[in-house]
């Protein structure tokens, strides 16, 4: 299978969908001439022309609103936000408009639009450039939220998102753009709400997505040295969420750790822990623990930033605790 970067995988998804369906078009800051702030739209302007690859003025609220209107007008817009940090300005269009249109209009109108861009910490970009907003969007009924970790998931989920009839918030990761992996050529559709077992094991379940999938896999390697087999489950989409896959694993391991990059209080991990205890209480032999980013705005200084983000060591430590093991 071809080895492709996360960035190229996203590019393939958009290129294939734009070629397949004339209604699909891309708009955002720097997506045309510049090929995207992170070069995700490389070559698309040349291939599809300025009508379908649209450089917009700097106005997140405005061009996300444009996407909502274009979707109402029968197109399938992909709106690229330079990062989700700046898309806070567009929260009103996404939450108050896109998410509610179908329900508000009694099903008369709907809004098949994809809002995509990177989120999360890169390297030393401090508090206004390092935020994880998946939970704030997954909170909203009417939205679907994708959090792909691998190039294959990036492509397969984006193609599904573009064809979806509902508005999709598609979270990418700056530090994952350059990572590589096997990706099928051509058609690849990964259904929403289908978790992937990134690593199987019977001793403890670790739920982790996007960058945290790799932190969890690293932790699993370290645990293996201690004779502990961790099962790493990547939900891939936070809404819809594949609770069944998580419960099935917990039924085997009886222990669970949820890892997320974002802030702890009211984070997605809290909801996941609640759902596990509600549906799988009898399977649990220990409280569910969470490993999260620290409850602070992201600092700039390197050692401080490192201290904020979940590390494999912190995940190992949490797993030991749910296993009642000392180091």
């Amino acid at each position: 299978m071809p080895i492709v970067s996360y960035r190229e995988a996203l590019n393939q998804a958009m290129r294939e969908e734009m070629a397949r369906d004339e209604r699909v078009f891309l708009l955002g800051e720097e997506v045309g001439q510049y090929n995207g702030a992170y070069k995700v739209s490389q070559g698309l302007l040349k291939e599809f022309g300025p009508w379908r690859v649209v450089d917009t003025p700097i106005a997140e609220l405005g061009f996300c609103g444009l996407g909502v209107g274009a979707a109402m007008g029968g197109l399938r817009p992909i709106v690229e936000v330079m990062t989700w940090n700046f898309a806070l300005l567009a929260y009103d269009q996404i939450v108050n408009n896109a998410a509610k249109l179908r329900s508000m209009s009694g099903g008369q109108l709907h809004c098949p639009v994809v809002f995509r861009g990177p989120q999360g910490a890169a390297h030393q970009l401090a508090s206004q450039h390092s935020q994880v907003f998946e939970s704030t969007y997954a909170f909203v009924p009417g939205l679907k939220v994708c959090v792909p970790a691998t190039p294959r998931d990036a492509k397969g989920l984006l193609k599904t998102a573009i064809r979806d009839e509902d508005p999709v918030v598609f979270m990418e990761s700056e530090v994952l753009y350059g990572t590589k992996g096997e990706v099928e050529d051509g058609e690849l559709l990964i259904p929403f709400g289908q978790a992937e077992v990134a690593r199987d094991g019977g001793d403890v379940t670790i739920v982790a997505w996007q960058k945290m999938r790799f932190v969890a896999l690293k932790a699993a390697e370290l645990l293996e040295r201690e004779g502990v087999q961790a099962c790493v489950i990547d939900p891939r989409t936070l809404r819809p969420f594949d609770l069944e896959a998580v419960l099935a694993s917990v039924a085997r391991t009886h222990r669970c750790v949820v890892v997320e990059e974002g802030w702890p209080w009211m984070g997605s991990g809290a909801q996941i822990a609640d759902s596990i205890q509600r549906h799988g209480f009898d399977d649990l032999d220990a409280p569910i623990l969470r490993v999260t980013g620290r409850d602070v705005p992201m600092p700039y200084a390197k050692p401080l930033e490192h201290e904020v983000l979940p590390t494999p060591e912190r995940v190992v430590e949490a797993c030991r605790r749910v296993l009642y093991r000392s180091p």
Partner: protein
Amino acid sequence: MRREIHESFVRRNGHDVHGEELTPFSQRPAAHRPEKEFPLERVLADDGSADLARSHLPQERLLPLYRLMVLNRALDERMIQLQRQGRIGFYIGSIGEEATVLGAAEGMAPQDWIFPCYREHGAAILRGLPLAKFLCDLLGNAGDLMEGHQMPCHEAFRPGRFASISSPIATQIPQAVGAGWAARIKKDDMVPLVYFGEGATSANDFHTGLNFAGVRKVPVVFVCRNNGWAISVPRERQTAAVTFAEKALAYGMKGERVDGNDLLAVYEATRLARARAAAGEGPTLIECVTYRMEGHSTSDDPRVYRPAELVDPWRKKDPILRLKGHLVWRGLLSESEDAAIRDAVAAEIQAALREAEALPSKPPLESLFDGVYAQPLWQQREQLEELRSAVAADPRVARLRGEG
């Protein structure tokens, strides 16, 4: 200080870094004279006469539009009464602004989408929304097109290409631009019309929507209903600009300022703006100068911030009286015919109300979960099951929860 440096630079060089001839700041004329450049366009004179060479509204449309204006007014008055009687929860209407609402909608083509603010019920009715259906929305009953999901006066009507009304001020503006962009990509002959109040021009959606439309010459018609008030905030507190139309200049588009109580003028400006947009000449911002004669909505009492003396002069400029004067001037309407129209309109509203109130008063509980997604997720399915079993276990639950 900066000015002095600049002026000495100009004295020495006579031109700026771009090579343009410069006048020292102190001698520069005011950039422009908005009152002169954006005069209030009118077609109807106070005495009802009109220069018919300037009006292209087909004569046979005059009486139907007059009737619609009368209907719109009577509807607003009746609904305000109903709200006071506690029969509906909330109402927001367009008393005094009917010519702006209907003139602009009439100026568009039937295939054009309308992106309303929240006072354009007249335009929805013009586009074929049955009156009884509109009332079902206010009642939130089983006949409500919005399935009881949306607040009163926030109707959507797809068959009439009337988009969903969005409460946050100005959000419909960039959406309309997006729909215009979609039409251009699809090569559809469709020009969206978007309405908003003058208060909305302070919102960032206004700026981003008009800016993009200007830059890309998107076909769209922007209609600013300048009714003088944003709840209690007068238009002078909304902008220091002399007119709203002049804002078009900065976006590189055509601006128009028309008498918003003059149906013929609003129609004319909109018709021409639509034609320009369809011909690829880009968008137009039309400021319709009108007046909000009543409170902002049924939740508002304007007497606490607006003295009656301010409103009185506008009573003489009532858009319905203006059009009536014109119809009389043209010999198209007599007093007795006018009285007959008013009676017929009142009867129509009464009949529609009877029709709407005859429907079951509540939408089915289960419709609660409709339309959250194209297909419900397990969260909605789980909650629906929960609701069903609660109702099955104890019928009182259904009553408590609103059914039965």
